[in-house]
């Protein structure tokens, strides 16, 4: 189970309910929609998919099993774009946590 966090040092700005991220090296500008912006804020700390879904559960009415693949897909996209990176700490194992395994 891996944890991800947003890449350190990337300039970003929250405008109303959305986030604009600038990748100076890649000369790219990214705009996140409202939900993605919430995830981005939660990624200030290292999180697993399961942890993120648990956080979003309190904010959205969508069921966790619907959210999870979408969150997972979004995190992969963030990582692919170089906007998120693997955290340094290990998530608790499934056995010790007793919950559903994370996907990343």
């Amino acid at each position, binding site marked *: 189970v891996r944890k991800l966090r947003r890449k350190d040092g990337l300039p970003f700005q929250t405008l*109303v309910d959305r986030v604009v991220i600038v990748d*100076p090296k890649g000369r790219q500008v990214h*705009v996140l929609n409202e939900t993605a912006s919430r995830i981005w804020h939660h990624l200030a700390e290292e999180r697993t998919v399961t942890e993120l879904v648990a956080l979003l559960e309190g904010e959205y009415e969508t069921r966790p099993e619907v959210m999870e693949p979408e969150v997972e897909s979004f995190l992969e996209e963030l990582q692919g774009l170089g906007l998120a990176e693997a955290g340094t700490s290990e998530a608790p194992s499934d056995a010790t946590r007793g919950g559903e395994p994370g996907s990343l």
Partner: protein
Amino acid sequence: MVHACCIRADNAALLFPGASGSGKSTLANKVANAEDVLSDELVPVRRAVDGRWRAYSSPFWGGARRGGRSLAGWPLRGIAPLSRGERLSLRPLHPAEATARVLETSLCFEDDRDAATHQLAVVSRLCSELPVFEMASALETPVDEILAELPLPSEASRPRWSRREMISEARSVLKRHGAYALSASGTSMTPHLGQGDVVFVVAARHESLVPGDLVIYWRPGRNPEGDHLVCHRLLARRLTVGGVRIVTKGDAVPEVESFLEGGEAELLGKVASIVRGPRSRPTGDRVGSWVGRARSFFGLPFRKGGHGRA
């Protein structure tokens, strides 16, 4: 600095950012009065001391090659990133989306984090404080129709800037930053300086000038519209009882002009280089050849009065 077309309407500026081929020059060409085109290529935008965002003309043109003569900064009223379409359409942009669109067309020569953070902060403030619309228009869409359709907040009407106010603004920028660029108009310096040439001016005091330098000075008129920003060749400086008298002449005109520095006119600076088309010509290397000509002019009208040269 935004890659954009900027036009003036009702004493305010409208910024139309866009990539190459998005229609910036097409739009600029549709503006009836070239004076109302600030640029069709690169537009400096900054928050002025009065707290308002202002857009300025620049000496950089795209395909339109017209306009860019306004010396004043114009309050920015709205932004409309451009795209091609079959008919005119406008869509309000969320500040985040607007920020991304304007950032994509902003010039940033550095790729370090600090520069990007600063650029993002400036552009996001700009796009949060001004209305931004995505605009698509066809080649034939009249500019008046575009302006009428843009749902912008009404600008408190103020009289059009007088020539005096515009020169005053140029003087203020030159004093503050030490350099300024403007487009030449008129024919008195032909062929060295032609209509539409871009003139880069640096602030200079009379002590540092030598005959042959191209100098810029503010010659006041009887009313605010009668003021002129003049670029002529320096013939001489003369110390007089009243102060320093500057003697100049346009290369293409027979008249010699003189003024009491700081009294009858104000010397603002000298020309550092001139750009005509894609080529830049520093003026320094031409001074030597011009000194001879300048001196030959000098003797004619002033020897009779017995004035000495500074």
